[in-house]
């Protein structure tokens, strides 16, 4: 937590330090405790590199740039999506598709943080990523597990930078290939009751130390051990061998399938914000073959997840977002690839606060521009906050109130309940 927050008039209170550790309760203005109490959750599926809207949510079959795939009907009459999404088509009654995304940045390196920070008006400060922003607003103050977990291929660790001006503590706990943090396993030489005993003694020592002193540091330090204990107790969450084989098959045994299954388990365990990243969507060459493969890896577990959340009654309080940093060019290049296209692309929403079975926005016949219902990432951030019941989301940084999403934009009412 904040370097900047240690200024004269803004010393951290105990609650803030605790909250910061939990990724909750600080930096926000007018936070509604009732929102926290509702245990709302988010699953954020990030398709890194740029999924093609034409091979997914916004197919244009039999047009100049439409590519080889057909559009198929879904469970909602009148809504068609790409034939590469047969399982997802059967879940359309839960989904809202936004087809009018028009954003500004066509580079990965700047576009990814720009989009995940919501591209607010530049005020010379670094905004938090969506996961940090949302857990700041809604993570329960008494959360016992980290509020923001990122499941990704390759390495894990703690991603401090996601916190932006909220501070490094709001970063994501990243699970490389879905593996739990190192040191989560207690060595076999320490029995459970011994671990409990030593932690009781530790807590007693802390209680004595804070008498007559500032208590914030001790409370925050204590809390880090409590969280470690909780995570150690729940380490079975990470053990997918415990999940029935049929379920694992339904999600797929490939990384994204495993990661989405783990995401479901983490949501069930009460994690506020779970981000799942899938790489390799940057299909500058051989776009169509790649999309056959990638879409299969994405849409089967995605559909399984939506169905599972709905069956468990979790979809009402869990907001699902599936998106990239931009879409892909309608024009097919000489390598049969599609390039970066921020001007007209799509994403999907489902669950908490979101209308079921709707499409908002329309692209031109060739798909090169937005014809109707054009929105930017700022609109989406407003929509996400509104869907989660966060009214007037703002931060306070160095004494200045800052809007949590772009000032000139508003929620997309058409997709909100």
């Amino acid at each position, binding site marked *: 937590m904040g370097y900047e927050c*240690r200024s004269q008039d803004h010393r951290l209170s105990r609650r803030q330090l605790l909250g910061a550790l939990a990724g909750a309760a600080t930096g926000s203005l007018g936070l509604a405790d009732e929102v926290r109490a509702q245990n709302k959750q988010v699953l954020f599926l990030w398709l890194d590199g740029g999924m093609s809207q034409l091979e997914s949510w916004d197919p244009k079959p039999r047009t100049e740039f439409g590519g080889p795939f057909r559009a198929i009907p879904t469970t909602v009459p009148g809504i068609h999506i790409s034939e590469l999404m047969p399982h997802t088509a059967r879940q359309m009654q839960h989904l809202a598709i936004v087809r009018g995304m028009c954003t500004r940045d066509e580079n990965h390196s700047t576009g990814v943080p720009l989009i995940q920070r919501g591209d607010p008006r530049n005020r010379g400060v670094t905004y938090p990523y969506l996961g940090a922003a949302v857990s700041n607003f809604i993570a329960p103050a008494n959360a016992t597990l980290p509020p923001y977990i990122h499941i990704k291929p390759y390495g894990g660790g703690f991603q401090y930078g996601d916190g932006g001006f909220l501070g490094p503590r709001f970063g994501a706990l990243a699970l490389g290939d879905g593996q739990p943090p190192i040191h989560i396993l207690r060595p076999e030489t320490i029995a459970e009751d011994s671990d409990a005993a030593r932690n009781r003694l530790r807590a007693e020592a802390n209680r004595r130390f804070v008498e007559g002193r500032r208590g914030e540091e001790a409370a925050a330090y204590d809390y880090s051990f409590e969280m470690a204990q909780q995570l150690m107790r729940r380490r079975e969450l990470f053990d997918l061998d415990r999940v029935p084989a049929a379920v694992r098959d339904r999600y797929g045994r490939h990384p994204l399938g495993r990661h989405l299954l783990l995401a479901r388990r983490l949501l069930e365990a009460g994690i506020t914000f779970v981000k799942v990243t899938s790489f390799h969507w940057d299909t500058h060459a051989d776009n169509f073959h790649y999309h056959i493969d990638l879409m299969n890896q994405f849409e089967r577990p995605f559909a399984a997840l939506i169905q599972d959340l709905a069956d468990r009654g979790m979809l009402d309080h869990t907001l699902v977002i599936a998106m990239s940093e931009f879409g892909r060019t309608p024009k097919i290049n000489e390598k049969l690839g599609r390039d970066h296209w921020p001007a007209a692309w799509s994403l999907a929403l489902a669950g908490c606060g979101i209308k079921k079975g709707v499409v908002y926005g329309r692209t031109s016949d060739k798909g090169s521009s937005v014809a109707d219902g054009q929105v930017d990432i700022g609109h989406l951030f407003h929509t996400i906050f509104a869907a989660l019941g966060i009214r007037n989301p703002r931060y306070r940084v160095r004494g200045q109130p800052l809007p949590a999403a772009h000032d000139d934009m508003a929620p997309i009412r058409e997709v909100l309940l």
Partner: protein
Amino acid sequence: MTRLTIVLLALHAGPLLAQEPLHRRIDDAIASGFKGPFAKDADHAAFVRRVHLDLAGVIPTAAEVRQFLNDESSNKRAALIDRLLAGPDFPRRMQEAFHVMLEERREVKESPLADWEDFLLTSFASGKPFDQLAREILAADGKPAATNKFYVDRNGEPHLITRDVARLFLGRDVECSQCHDHPTVHDYKQADYFGLYAFVNRSFVAKQGKVTGLAEKVSPGQVDFESVFDTIKMKTGPRLPSGKEIVEPAYAKGEEYLEKPNPKEGKPGVPKFSSRAVLAQQLTSAKNSAFVRNSANRLWYLMMGQGVVHPLDQHHSDNVPAQPKLLDVLAEGLVELKFDVKAFLREIALSAAYQRSSMLPGKDEPPTGTFAVAELRPLSPEQLLYSVAQATGGLEAVVRKTATPAERAGAMRTKFGPSLKGFVTAFGNRPGEAEVAFQPSLAGALYLSNDRVILEWLEPKDGNLAARLAKLTDDAVAEEMYFSILSRPATTAERAETAAHLRTRGEQRTLALRELCWALLASTEFRLNH
């Protein structure tokens, strides 16, 4: 009447005050800025731990604590300060602290960390003044190669270097003024940013034979810039903020080089005029008040855990310190002491402010930055590792036969290097990030709870803490344990708790001792310099 009195007092007091030692002037400045209440003087046990951590980078041994508490001489605190400053740990402690302060734990393979550590260690062991050290780092003449580290770690990227020179050596986070005058900080101007940039924009990282070094191009002339808010074109040559633009010598075409570039032989060339050398000279001058004040403030932070100006890189007129006179006094003192780090830290350590307790003076906490109560500040990953090793009894054997700072640092690096990596990952910030505030993390808690190396140190072996405790009666365990780990005697309640736990565990005495020791190592009291 009032004004007259002040004038008279000033006339009278002026020459006398100048002779006052710096630590008195520090306390006078603090007393003039805050009326109290102030925390009491820290007890001797708290002092001995604090000053060991700050000047030796590790907690004292149980024997050192006992000896200090039993010492009845009235000047024992000053004597201990001097002993630690002259001791073999001080240069290593400074090496660690300045690596964090100036490099923020950056590390690239082109500039080996070990070389840089040796350079810092040698610098502090030889008593190199801070202005000279800063000059060598900014001039980066490659002698030794580690002087290039500041630029090489940042891959010669001139905007990053401009930002970090301003932040770390001038105390100004000017990042926003790359594109326009700073929107909220009125002192940070875009012209100042580009003045600084013009000093470093011609330096670049180049391979010279087998080593990666730093080279410089000939002057590209003035730098063009314009604000993103308007379209007025501006130019500047190299210029320090609030300084004068330097006039660069003009050379005829072909005459600019001392040594001409020769790409075939891998020689990038050496220009006759080095703007980096001028930057190093001008910036580190005692007349550059931004440099002096930033240096004084960072050294103060090192000892106090809170800058007079805080955040440390926010020196500007809108960030008024709670103790406005204090930084003037410190800056003056640093110049008087000719940037002698050891002498300057000595004065801070002698001040009543440094020696105050962390126990609050009343129900309310004094405002931050008044220095009325000692800050609770985290041990650095290095301090924490060495202190765990010290407490559990594994450090003494490693350092026993070392006499010089280099020998000692070398022995500690050899023994604890791999563990240190783990500690830095679990308790430090990522490279390039200031390590300032206390940030307890899940990773740290999991590390202390489950890391096998730590747990192994708690097993009885070769006269270490666990072995010593195993030989004691239940009633004597607490005393030795608290002296060894928390550097203080145990209270009555703590003795009772310890004995009770040992009784509960009965036969499982080794287990009980392990639990008791771990609890203290994982306690907040151990984690903080208090």
